[in-house]
């Protein structure tokens, strides 16, 4: 299943990256004579209520959705690894303080705070870097900012167990400084669970971005991310179900593939096998 998922994910990613180069229908070509048509040869996924081609919109939106997913995962992993590493390598008060901060962040209600931060800072960022880039930065930082805590805990747990091993002691006896110990010896060995958590983070980030767009609080309305397509489609369910079905199926397939890959990775990296 995991291998099949890798194939599916590669197909989706390449479709999203290369698709707009092949299928050169513009995403905002309004054509009122072709409103809400079902899939046909001219419009393989049908059209929406303004006659815009859905395949083109989905390919374009897919880039953004996937980019948000991977970027948020990167933010979460970098932040979590940093904090977990610092916490794991230093004992005592630094560790206690960092873990207390982690617990505090873990206690924050995710979706309400996500909505709150976007509501508060959206205009400010829009004036600073422009609407799309501003919302992209905001969404990536906020989604990533809510997912670093499990990574930090995982990394810290790995550090606490790895720092007692002999190879670390040997390296220290050879005169390695602490940063060198961390970067060259302990960190590479602790990344297994982090990779698994990373794949789950991508799935969660994609769902979070779709949820935000679905609630109307994500990217500006003209950017066709998959969640936004669902938001627009939900009012036309009875006359144009293909619209919602294609957008939702895309999100579903991507998240499913990523979840299977994460599960496969966990099975491969986890020495405890259930017999």
């Amino acid at each position, binding site marked *: 299943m995991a291998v099949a998922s890798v194939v599916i994910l590669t197909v989706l990613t390449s479709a999203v990256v290369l698709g707009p180069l092949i299928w050169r229908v513009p995403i905002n070509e309004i054509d009122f004579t072709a409103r809400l048509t079902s899939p046909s040869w001219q419009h393989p996924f049908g059209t929406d209520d303004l006659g815009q081609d859905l395949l083109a919109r989905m390919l374009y939106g897919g880039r953004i959705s996937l980019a948000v997913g991977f970027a948020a995962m990167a933010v979460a992993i970098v932040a979590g690894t940093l904090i977990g590493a610092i916490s794991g390598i230093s004992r005592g008060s630094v560790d206690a303080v960092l873990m207390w901060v982690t617990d505090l962040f873990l206690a*924050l*209600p995710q979706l309400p705070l996500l909505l709150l931060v976007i509501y*508060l*800072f959206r205009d400010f960022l829009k004036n600073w870097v422009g609407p799309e880039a501003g919302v992209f930065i905001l969404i990536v930082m906020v989604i990533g900012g809510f997912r670093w805590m499990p990574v930090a805990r995982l990394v810290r747990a790995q550090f606490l167990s790895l720092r007692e091993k002999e190879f670390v002691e040997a390296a220290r006896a050879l005169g390695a400084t602490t940063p060198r110990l961390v970067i060259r010896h302990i960190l590479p060995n602790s990344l297994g669970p982090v990779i698994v958590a990373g794949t789950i983070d991508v799935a969660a980030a994609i769902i979070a971005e779709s949820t935000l767009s*679905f609630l109307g609080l994500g990217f500006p309305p003209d950017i066709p991310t998959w969640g936004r397509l*669902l938001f627009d489609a*939900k009012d036309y*369910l009875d006359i144009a*179900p293909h619209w919602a079905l294609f957008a939702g199926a895309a999100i579903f397939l991507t998240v499913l593939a990523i979840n299977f890959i994460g599960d496969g990775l966990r099975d491969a990296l986890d020495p405890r096998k*259930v017999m």
Partner: protein
Amino acid sequence: MGKYILRRLIIALPSLLGISLILFVLLALAPGDPFGELATNTNIPPEVRAALRVKFGIDDPVFVRYVRWLVAMLQGDWGFSFSSRINVDQLILQRVPTTLFVVGSSQILALAVALPVGVYAAMRPYSIFDQIANTLAFVGFSLPTFFTGLLLILIFSVNLGWLPFVYRTDIAATGWHWYWENFKQAIMPVAVLGLFQAASYTRYVRSAVLDVIRLDYVTTARSKGLHEGKVIVKHVVRNALIPVVTLVALQMPAVFGGAIVTEQIFRIPGIGSLLITAILANDTPVIMAVTFVFACLVVVFNLLADIIYGWLDPRISYR
């Protein structure tokens, strides 16, 4: 046990204060001024505007404002909604029962599905049932709730016309008919939320039972001649439930978050949709109060999870 609860309470209160501080600082940092509109209103002279700012203490340092807000909240004064024109606590109290009903029923449904399926799948690992259950669980939590909600509406309300898709709290009926109408309108949102949770719970129950089922005391129980059902229920499930129950209690805040989306789709008048409407209407007091309610829920459920964990596993409460 009492000391354990007290210790947990003492840790929970600073968390609540910390969360409320973060919320308040976020709001204070945000650009935008509640008196911004007044600045452009030519009817209000600058001295009056300055006096208003002093009266409401808007320019005081953040910490002073935070303490004032906290004291007001604790005294029960939760502010006045800009757009709904009633007190915020009244507004929230109107909406909480509906959300609690939907969320509570969905958790009961989730557990009712996940426990039997998870236990049975763990009793026969890697069998056909287990593989189907695993795959369905994956599919279940990969489907975003808004998609399943829309699909269900499409199938049951639009095409088949069996169930209403707008949730009404003022059903004009009595007795049996009222219950039936309520049940029909609640079934879809509860199913959407519940099955999504059931998918992740099933996998967790399965792995928890798998961890317990190969321990020595289970083999002892079987070799004593106990009926297999009794072994499973009395020994395995009771011990496997410990991490599961903690997970359920810890997931409650996320479920409330998920309820926000479901309430939007099915137009349920609960706290989640109150938050969304308040955000879209720039109604700051309501936003602050609802987010604070969510934060309180998180802390309360974490505390509950700790207490239940300590009760179920006496070894924990001795630490």
